[in-house]
């Protein structure tokens, strides 16, 4: 850096940032105290992370439920089907196989900023929560009756924040 740069830098440093307005300072300190008193800070943060961990088995259970439902209807569809019949035509050709899976969809519903968290290792991370809605539809080709299932799901991504 040249001497000219250093002089210019020094001239910039002569000006210091303006004071925080008294009203704003009071408001911020008050909101911090309120947040602390309401117990919405660390314990909630820790709870949020553990809640996410708690939700993981639920997500697995939901996935198993979806899979089991699919298998159930698949088995239902194949009960009286001739072994040599291709799966795609089984439901349509058998009179006793009522429901055929006709639609499956994963809809993105939105994303939410969960703010900054600390992990157990004190590493700051930025949480981003994605919400989805998974829907499935089965139809009885004989009478046109329909079964619909919609299951909400969400995924929380914790992005590390570098602070060194």
């Amino acid at each position, binding site marked *: 850096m040249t001497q000219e740069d250093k002089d*210019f830098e020094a001239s910039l440093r*002569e000006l210091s940032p303006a004071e925080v307005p008294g009203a704003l300072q009071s408001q911020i300190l008050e909101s911090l105290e309120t*947040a602390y008193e309401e117990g919405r800070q660390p314990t909630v943060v820790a709870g949020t992370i553990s809640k996410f961990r708690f939700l993981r088995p639920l997500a697995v259970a939901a996935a198993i439920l979806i899979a089991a439902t699919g298998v159930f209807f698949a088995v239902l569809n194949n009960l009286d089907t001739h072994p040599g019949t291709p799966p795609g035509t089984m439901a349509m050709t058998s009179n006793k196989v009522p429901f055929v899976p006709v639609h499956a969809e994963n809809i993105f519903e939105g994303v939410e900023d969960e703010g900054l968290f600390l992990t157990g290792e004190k590493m700051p991370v930025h949480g981003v929560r994605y919400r989805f809605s998974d829907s499935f539809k089965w139809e009885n080709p004989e009478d046109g009756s329909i079964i619909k299932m919609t299951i909400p799901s969400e995924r929380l991504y914790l992005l590390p924040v570098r602070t*060194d």
Partner: protein
Amino acid sequence: MNDDLSSEWKEWFRINGTKLLLFARTQTNIEADAQDILQDAMLRLLKSYGSGENDKWEPPPLPLAYTALRHAAIDLARKNTRRTRREQNSDYLVSAHDPAGDWFGTSTLEEKEKSSALKQAIGQLPGNFRDVLVLKIWGDLTFSQIASTLEIPANTAASRYRYALEALRKILKPNSL
């Protein structure tokens, strides 16, 4: 309220609040938004960095505070974009941006002129230059800390700083600080 939290966080904010507010002001052209993101960032920091373990409530490191401010500013910008879109779609009248407050402490007329010229000059800098300059000169961060805060390599931070100084000097030349 815990005395440690009260005294340490208040003292920390008293020392660093001016720098944080200046950085917040450079992230938005609207004074009210700058104040909002400062408050939002402080609450996020308390929620994320304050720890109930052993009843310790240490204030956060300064670079983390700047990171929280950046995230709050980004979130606000997203919300404002959506709001503006809604308002335009609803034939709302979008009011003109209100002028930002005084960025620097001044006591004399000469300092006020300097402050005003500097504020305008900083506003003309590209955002990536401006952030590095403000964090280095008035934010008390090292290049390494700036690099972490802005998620860029340290060499990039240093070169942006040099370019920012050069650009700022050219803008201010007629006013010569």
